[in-house]
C-alpha cells in the first residue's frame, strides 16, 4: 500500500532567510524563491602531470595549482639532490639547481616566484635557509636553530616556521631579513600538515606527531591533535579523524585540506593513507580520497579548493619514491541553491 510520503514527498520549511544550518538540512527560501540546502564538500582528486623525476622530502613552493616549485629532497635512490622543477600550470621545467647544502625534509614558505626553503637534514639538522626569486636560489639568514620536518607558512617577507625535529614546539617569525622566536606551539610537532596563510600574522593550522624522539621506531599511535595560529599564539583546535604523520596540507585555517601520510593500524603496523580530511575552521570531516596513498610530499600547496599533491614516498619501502601528482578540485561545504530547469 502506498504511503502518503511516498506519493506527496516530504515537506521542508519555508523561511524568509537562510537559517543557521546543519549539513544535510534543506529549506525553501521565500525571499529568493529557491530551494536551498547545506552541502558537504564534494571535492575530488584527479591525476595531474607528473614531476620529471621521483621526489620525497623535497621542498615545495606555491599557493595555487597553476604555479609551483619542487626542489631538493631525495630521489628514488634516496640520494639527496639539488634539482629544481617549476610548474606553470601546464608543464614542468627544470630550472636552476639548488645551490645550497643538499638537504631533505625542508619547509617551504612562499610562492613560485618568491619563496624560502628552510632547515632540513643533510644530516644533521640544518639551520640553512635558501631564498628563491623565481629564477635562482641564494643564501638567506639561518634559522635560530637547525630544524628538519618543520611546517612553513606565510610569505617570503612575512613567514612563520613551526615545529620540527630539533625544537619541536619552537616557532620562529621571519620578517624578510631575519628570524626571531615567538610564542611556541603547545605540543611537540614534527612532520605535520599545515595550511598556508596569507602572511605570518594571518591564521594558520598545524597538525603533526607529538613526539618522534623514539629510538628504534615511531610512536604506537599518531596524534590527531591540531593547533591554530591566530597571528600571535597557538591554541588547540578540532582534531583530525585519523592521526597521521607526514601528510600534505593546503588551504587556510578556515578551509584546509589534509591528505595522505602514514598511520598505524591496531596491530601497530605502518599503513600509508590515501584519505583526505577537510577543516572548516572548527572541525575536520572526511572528503575525497587520493588515488595513490603517499607520504612525505613536496609540501606545496594551493588553496582549499585548488591544490596539488606533489610526489612523495609509497610502498613497498624503502625505495618507492614517486613523481606522481594529483590535483585537488574542492567544492567547499556550505549553503547551496538547488537548480531547477
Amino acid at each position, binding site marked *: 500500500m502506498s504511503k502518503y510520503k511516498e506519493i506527496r514527498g516530504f515537506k521542508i520549511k519555508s523561511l524568509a532567510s537562510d537559517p543557521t544550518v546543519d549539513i544535510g538540512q534543506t529549506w525553501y527560501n521565500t525571499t529568493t524563491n529557491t530551494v536551498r540546502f547545506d552541502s558537504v564538500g*564534494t571535492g*575530488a*582528486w*584527479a*591525476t*595531474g*602531470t*607528473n614531476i620529471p623525476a621521483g621526489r620525497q622530502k623535497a621542498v615545495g613552493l606555491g599557493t595555487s595549482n597553476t604555479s609551483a616549485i619542487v626542489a631538493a629532497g631525495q630521489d628514488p635512490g634516496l640520494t639527496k639532490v639539488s634539482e629544481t622543477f617549476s610548474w606553470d600550470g601546464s608543464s614542468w621545467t627544470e630550472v636552476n639547481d639548488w645551490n645550497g647544502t643538499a638537504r*631533505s*625534509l625542508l619547509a617551504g614558505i612562499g610562492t613560485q616566484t618568491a619563496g624560502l626553503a628552510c632547515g632540513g*637534514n643533510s*644530516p644533521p*639538522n640544518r639551520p640553512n635557509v635558501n631564498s628563491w626569486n623565481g629564477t635562482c636560489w641564494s643564501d638567506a639568514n639561518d634559522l635560530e636553530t637547525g630544524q*628538519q*620536518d618543520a611546517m612553513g607558512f606565510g610569505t617570503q617577507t612575512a613567514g612563520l616556521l613551526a615545529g620540527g*625535529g630539533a625544537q619541536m614546539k619552537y616557532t620562529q617569525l621571519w620578517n624578510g631579513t631575519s628570524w626571531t622566536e615567538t610564542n611556541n606551539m603547545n605540543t611537540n610537532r*614534527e*612532520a605535520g600538515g599545515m595550511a598556508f596563510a596569507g602572511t605570518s600574522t594571518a591564521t594558520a593550522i598545524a597538525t603533526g*606527531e607529538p613526539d*618522534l624522539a*623514539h*629510538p*628504534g*621506531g*615511531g610512536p604506537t599511535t599518531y596524534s590527531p591533535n591540531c593547533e591554530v595560529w591566530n597571528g600571535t599564539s597557538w591554541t588547540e583546535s578540532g582534531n583530525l579523524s585519523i592521526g597521521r*604523520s*607526514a601528510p600534505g596540507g593546503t588551504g587556510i585555517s578556515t578551509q584546509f585540506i589534509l591528505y595522505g601520510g*602514514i598511520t598505524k593500524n591496531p596491530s601497530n*603496523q*605502518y*599503513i600509508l593513507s*590515501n584519505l583526505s580530511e577537510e577543516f572548516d575552521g572548527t572541525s575536520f570531516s572526511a572528503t*575525497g*580520497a*587520493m*588515488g*595513490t*596513498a603517499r*607520504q*612525505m610530499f613536496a609540501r606545496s600547496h594551493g588553496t582549499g579548493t585548488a591544490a596539488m599533491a606533489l610526489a612523495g*614516498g*609509497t*610502498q*613497498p*619501502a*624503502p*625505495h*618507492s619514491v614517486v613523481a*606522481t*601528482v594529483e*590535483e585537488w*578540485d574542492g567544492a567547499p561545504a556550505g549553503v547551496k541553491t538547488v537548480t531547477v530547469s
Partner: protein
Amino acid sequence: MANTYCTATNTGKGFITHADRNLFDIEEHMGAIWVVENNNHGISWINRVGGTAKVKAEAQAIVDDLIEQGQAEWDALPAEEKAPTEGYERVTRPVKYDLP
C-alpha cells in the same frame, strides 16, 4: 561496494579526471594495481586507459609479491639504515594486507 581490478600505467593528466572521481571510487596499489568500483563508469574507465583486467586473486598476488620483495630488501639493509638516522624516516618494513 563491489570492486573490480586491473593493471594500468598512470600517464598523468587526464588518466583519472575529477569527473571520473564523482562517478566511481578508485585507488592505486603497488604494482600499478587499480581497485575500481565495479559500475559502468568504472568499467568504462578501465577500457579508456587500456587497463588489463585482473581477478582479485591475481591482483592480490601481484601486490603480495612486491611486498615480499620489499620485505626482503628491508631485511637485507644494515641495522644502521633501518634505524631512524634522518630524524624519523617513516620508511618501514612493508606489511602484507588484503586488497579491498
